Structures are given as structure tokens and as C-alpha cells.
């Protein structure tokens, strides 16, 4: 069958079972859009900015576990994807991005809307291609999807010159991907696994530190088995929230800079840390030389480059977490010592998460209320800042893929488009997006996308009129000199959403919250709730940057 390059890409997308694409057309990608125009099995969602398209594809991928797809034209369209690609790269999210490119004869001449997007995205993609020959196209698209979703997932970019979109060739979909430079390790080394079993057996004060890797590996049943079989307490990273039910007594919630005091104390007191799909990031370890000094470390991850990167590891196991946990579960036994569990219980009892729950509309109270009324099958999506930490702290995540947030890159403006993507991927679930007023305004143009496509998410703005997290740091470390963190000139968000034909509800007082939430969740459409929260509420506990995680501020003993 002779097809054009554009037709070949669409055929490949169908083979990859792509249902939704997020993007914006432009000059250099018109042939591809022309083919999509008559393709009924793939839905294209027109965002209002390419960054929104990349984040939406990312949210879609996180919610479904499938590869997210976004598209943009050459030049500015492509550069607008960059933040989204970097975001997906740092959180290991499978994404395939297509960018239009000027015709091959013009590449390198600074032609109209030409940028070297493959060069620009080199350090923030798992791989990138410039499709210079239509004959390679099917292989490239197949490889891109394969690379994006296997091993440690990540974004892959395909730069697609306009003449190649129009060139014709015989379409043949390769039977198998063959990449001799890419062979992720799936099963862990047996000797190492046995060594880990021995350490787990010997440990008196073990703790599990689980992260996003557990979620990308779909290892929740295995992790649950492992925790229940061994009786070892578990704390998760921001990326790992939901990989183990936080309602379980062995769960210690999140650790790190804004983690629970009891998780940080437990990690600091542990004699064995079992790291699962984590990277010992600086937001977790605090001062690295003083992190978990008493502990041996088992580190299980699919990426060999993560092992020993930040911290020296006693037992590294490289491989797929699901596989390795299955193996571990064959050998481990319930720990009989109850003393450690008592210590951990004690930490939990003495140093709970708490805030001054007065008559004001506190952001923590908002999260607790959402936690109360939301059912299973709810996805919480956040942007970045104080609201993100409150959402992580004061909502109990019980299911994997129920918390979606920008972890590594910390991208303000991520939440709203990502929530739209999540809802497109999981229409049967309730999607609630939490954002600050600062974050929301970074991608608020996507109200149009939500309303026009009737993407029924509930958008909650925790509105304090500040770039709150930066203001908090200014309060704590810069003598309350609030340099450029006051958001004077915010729009009336209700009027804004109404201007787009959407629905908005303002919540001024605590008692208005519950009815507003109920109403929003019962309507099957996009609803924005603007919650006016106290202006200078802070996120606690907090580990000062550069301090060990056992030294937190904002923790009082009960």
C-alpha cells in the first residue's frame, strides 16, 4: 500500500492504539492534520497553547498508564512544547511528541518557523528523531512508542519535515522493534535479591521508601503483598502517592521537605531503607551527608544510572520493580519484632499533621473536605506550590494513579491541562484539579479547551493572591521581603470562566465549601471553584533546604 508520510504516521498511531491526541496545527504540520481531519478513530483535542497540549498528554499518560501523544507545528509550536517535555522527562512519563518541521531542503537555513527542536530537546527527551526519509518513518514511530513506554519511561520527540509528510512510500509496519543499543533489564539479579532478603530478615528497624517507579511499573498488588507480608512501614515520595493505601496503619504518608514528621523521623531512625523506584532526590534526603545515617540501603530501580547517583547503596537491584517484588515476596517473612512498629506508632501519635483549623477557609480544610466527599475513582491533579503540598498532605490516596502532579520539574501551570488530559483518559472517573491562583494563570487559556470539549473536571483554585510558596520562603528566609510575589491584578476568576461559557462558584467562607463541592461534582461539566483562602497560610512541616530531614520546622509535639 503506497501512503504519504502523514498517512503512515496516522496508520502507526492506530497500530499503537492511540485514541486521543492533544495539539495545535500550523504551517509545517498541515499535511498531518489534513489526514487526521478524516480519521474517526483518533480524537484530536485542540488546546490553546502547545504547553497545554504537552501537559494534557502527560496527564493522560499518568492517569491511564498509556503513552500520551501531543503535536505542534515547527518553530514556536515546537518550543512551546519544551516545558512539557522536560516535565515528562523528569517524572519519567511516556510521551510521544510530533513536531512539524520545515522541508528537508530548508533545514539549517533559519527558514520561517524553523528551530532545531531535536537539538533543543536533546537533554530533556529519552530519545529524539528527525524523520529525514519517509522509508524510515514507520520504524521511527514504532520505536518512539516502544522507547517511551518501556524501561524507565520518558518522552520521545519526532521532528517531521513537511516534505516527508507529503512524500510517498510503500507502508510496511515492522513486525518487531530491534534496537541493539536499548535493552532495559527486567529481572533483577538473583544473588542481589537473596542478599536483600537476608538484610530484610536481619533488619530491626526497616522502612520502605516507595516512589513513582512503583506506579510506572504497575506494581501495586506486589507492593501491597510485600508490605503486608513483611509488616514493614512504608513512606512514599510525592510521585509515589497512592502506590500503597494511605489509610493502612503501616502507611506513613509522604516523606521529605514537606513530608510528615513521622515519616521523616522514621526514615532517620531506620536501620534499613528499601528504596523502590526512587531517586534519593534532594527534596527527599535533605542534607545528603546526614540522610539515614544508621541505615543500610537497598535500592531497586529499572535505571542503572539511578543506582549510586546521589547516595551510596549497599544492595542495588536493577530491574522492573513488579518482577523483583514478586521474587522478594517468595522469600520474605513477617517481621516478628513489634518494637519498631511501636516506635513508629509513637511518632505518628506524637507528631501528627496538624493546622489551626479555625473559622477561616483553610486550604488544609479544603483538602480534608474533598477527601471526605470524594468517592473511589477520583483523581486529584495539582499544579505546583503550596496547594500541591497541602493536596499531598491532607488527602488520603488509596489507589495508584489517583494523584497526578509535577514532581521533578515543579512546573507551575501543569495542573489544569494535565487534569484535562487525565479526564480524557479516564472519563468514568471524577477529576479534581487543585491549583493556586498563580499556577492557574500560567495556563488559564485552557478554560476554552475544557468548556468547548465539555471536559467535566472540577477546578479548585486556592486563591491567596500570592505566589504562595515563594512568599513562604521569603517570610522564612528573606525577612518577609515579599519581592514580586504579590499577585495584584488577578482577574475575577468567576467572570473569567463565565466569559468562556463555563460555570464558576466562589467560596468565601468555610461553610460555603461543602455545598459548592457537591454541586460541582454533581454537574457533569467543567466547574471552577474559586476558594479565597487566608493569604499567609504556610505549609508545615518543612525541612529547611540544606538541613537534615529530621530537623523540621512547624512540628510541635502533641
Amino acid at each position, binding site marked *: 500500500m503506497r501512503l504519504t508520510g502523514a498517512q503512515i504516521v496516522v496508520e502507526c498511531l492506530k497500530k499503537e492504539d492511540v485514541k486521543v491526541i492533544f495539539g495545535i496545527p500550523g504551517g509545517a504540520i498541515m499535511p498531518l492534520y489534513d489526514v487526521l481531519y478524516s480519521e474517526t478513530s483518533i480524537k484530536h483535542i485542540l488546546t490553546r497553547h502547545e504547553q497545554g497540549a504537552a501537559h494534557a498528554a502527560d496527564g493522560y499518560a499518568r492517569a491511564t498508564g498509556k503513552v500520551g501523544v501531543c503535536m505542534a507545528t515547527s518553530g514556536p509550536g515546537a518550543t512551546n512544547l519544551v516545558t512539557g517535555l522536560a516535565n515528562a522527562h523528569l517524572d519519567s512519563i511516556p510521551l510521544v511528541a510530533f513536531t512539524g518541521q520545515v522541508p528537508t531542503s530548508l533545514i539549517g537555513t533559519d527558514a520561517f518557523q524553523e528551530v532545531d527542536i531535536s537539538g533543543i530537546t536533546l537533554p530533556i527527551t529519552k530519545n529524539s528523531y528527525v524523520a529525514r526519509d519517509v522509508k524510515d518513518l514507520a520504524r521511527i514511530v514504532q520505536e518512539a512508542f516502544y522507547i517511551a513506554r518501556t524501561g524507565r519511561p520518558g518522552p520521545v520527540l519526532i521532528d517531521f519535515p513537511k516534505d516527508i509528510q507529503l512524500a510517498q512510500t510503500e507502508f510496511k509496519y515492522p513486525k518487531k522493534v530491534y534496537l541493539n543499543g536499548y535493552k532495559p533489564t527486567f529481572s533483577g539479579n538473583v544473588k542481589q535479591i537473596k542478599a536483600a532478603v537476608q538484610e530484610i530478615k536481619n533488619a530491626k528497624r526497616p522502612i520502605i521508601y516507595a516512589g513513582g517507579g512503583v506506579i510506572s511499573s504497575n506494581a501495586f498488588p506486589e507492593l501491597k503483598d510485600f508490605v503486608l507480608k513483611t509488616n514493614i512501614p512504608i513512606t512514599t515520595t510525592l510521585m509515589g502517592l497512592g502506590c500503597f493505601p494511605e489509610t493502612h496503619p503501616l502507611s506513613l504518608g509522604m516523606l521529605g521537605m514537606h513530608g510528615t514528621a513521622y515519616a521523616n523521623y522514621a526514615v532517620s531512625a531506620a536501620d534499613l531503607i528499601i528504596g523502590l523506584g526512587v531517586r534519593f532526590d534532594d527534596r527527599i534526603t535533605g542534607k545528603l551527608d546526614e540522610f539515614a545515617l544508621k541505615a543500610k540501603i537497598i535500592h531497586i530501580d529499572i535505571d542503572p*544510572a539511578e543506582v549510586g547517583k546521589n547516595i551510596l547503596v549497599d544492595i542495588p537491584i536493577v530491574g522492573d520493580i513488579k518482577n523483583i517484588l514478586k521474587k522478594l515476596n517468595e522469600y520474605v517473612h513477617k517481621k516478628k519484632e513489634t518494637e519498631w512498629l511501636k516506635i513508629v506508632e509513637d511518632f505518628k501519635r506524637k507528631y501528627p499533621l496538624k493546622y489551626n483549623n479555625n473559622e477561616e477557609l483553610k486550604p488544609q480544610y479544603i483538602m480534608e473536605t474533598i477527601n471526605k466527599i470524594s468517592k473511589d475513582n477520583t483523581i486529584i491533579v495539582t499544579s505546583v506550590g503550596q496547594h500541591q503540598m497541602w493536596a499531598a498532605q491532607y488527602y488520603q490516596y488509596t489507589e495508584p494513579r489517583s494523584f497526578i502532579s509535577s514532581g521533578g520539574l515543579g512546573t507551575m501551570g501543569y495542573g489544569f491541562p494535565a487534569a484535562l488530559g487525565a479526564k480524557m483518559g479516564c472519563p468514568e472517573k471524577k477529576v479534581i484539579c487543585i491549583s493556586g491562583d498563580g499556577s492557574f494563570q500560567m495556563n488559564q487559556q485552557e478554560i476554552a479547551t475544557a468548556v468547548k470539549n465539555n471536559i467535566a473536571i472540577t477546578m479548585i483554585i486556592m486563591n491567596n493572591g500570592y505566589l504562595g510558596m515563594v512568599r513562604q520562603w521569603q517570610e522564612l528566609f528573606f525577612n518577609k521581603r515579599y519581592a514580586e510575589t504579590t499577585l495584584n491584578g488577578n482577574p475575577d476568576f468567576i467572570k473569567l470562566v463565565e466569559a468562556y461559557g463555563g460555570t464558576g462558584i466562589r467560596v468565601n467562607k468555610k461553610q460555603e465549601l461543602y455545598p459548592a463541592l457537591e454541586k460541582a461534582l454533581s454537574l457533569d461539566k467543567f466547574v471552577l471553584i474559586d476558594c479565597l483562602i487566608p493569604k499567609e497560610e504556610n505549609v508545615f512541616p518543612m525541612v529547611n533546604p540544606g538541613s537534615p530531614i529530621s530537623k523540621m520546622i512547624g512540628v510541635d509535639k502533641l
Partner: protein
Amino acid sequence: MRHTIAVLVKDLPGVLARVASLFTRRGFNIESLAVGHTEETGISRMTIIVEGDERVLEQITKQLNKLIDIIRVKDIFPQNSVERELALIKVNTASLLIRSEVMQTVDIFRAKVIDVNSQIITIETTGTEDKVNALIELLRPFGLEEIVRTGKIALSRGSKDISTSKKQDE
């Protein structure tokens, strides 16, 4: 410490940029870099010489291994490898006296004269880096016009190789 790293890569545009950027990001200066085809079509081999902290280098090696177009990466140790470098050296030999002295030095080093005119002799030499350095130092007083060096290439001794078929699975 100084390291010699051999990298087998797919012969594709952009691969060199990917490799170089990993070193740049961690602040490593590549002292020399030699690239050429291998026994297998479509596969090139880079020999990279860098100086730097062991742990950071291990990290770079792992990161290199992650690149899709990179097939294998290996640290090559001097004690069990052979290494060579080629240099072309132009010496100013306007006076005949100098010329014969230069020719003698070339002989001692078993180097070759590959081009000559009334002003300039061009010398080719291969050998270890030390040998090339020594020859250059001896020629310097005569007046060096121009030097070009390929950068070191290296192979492990004997049957040890880093063939493309068995990417290490560590």
C-alpha cells in the same frame, strides 16, 4: 584520574552531540575524541579521553549507556590495552643544516617525512601519546609551524573486545 573510554555508537546524525552534552553537563572537558567506522557497517567507535572524579565518571558512563543510539561503553585501562595516536607535524626547515638534524630526529623516532619543500618538512608519526609528545618537544626548537593530532585510539589486548553483539547487561 585520566580515563580512556571506548564507546560503540550507531552511525547516525546527532549521536556525537548527545555524547558530548553528557560530558559538558557534568563539567567534564573532553581532552581528545577520535571517531571512526568499525568492522560492522553502521557502527562507529569513539575513543574519548577525559580527566575527572571517578564517581562522576561512573555516572556519565551509566548515562551514556542509557542513550538509545549508544551500543556499548567501556572504560579501557592502559595496562591491558594498546593505544596509538597519529600526528602530522610541520617543521620550518629553511636552513639546510636544520633539515638534516630534523631528518635524524625523524629517523630515531621511526617517523616519516610525508611532504617536503624548500621551506617546510611535514612529518607523520604514530605511537603512544608519550612518544608523540616527545617527538614534538624535540622538534619544537627548530620551529613548529603547525601540528595536528588525531587523539588517542585504543583497543583491549588479546581476545577481549567490546563487540556489538553482546551489550553488557549489568
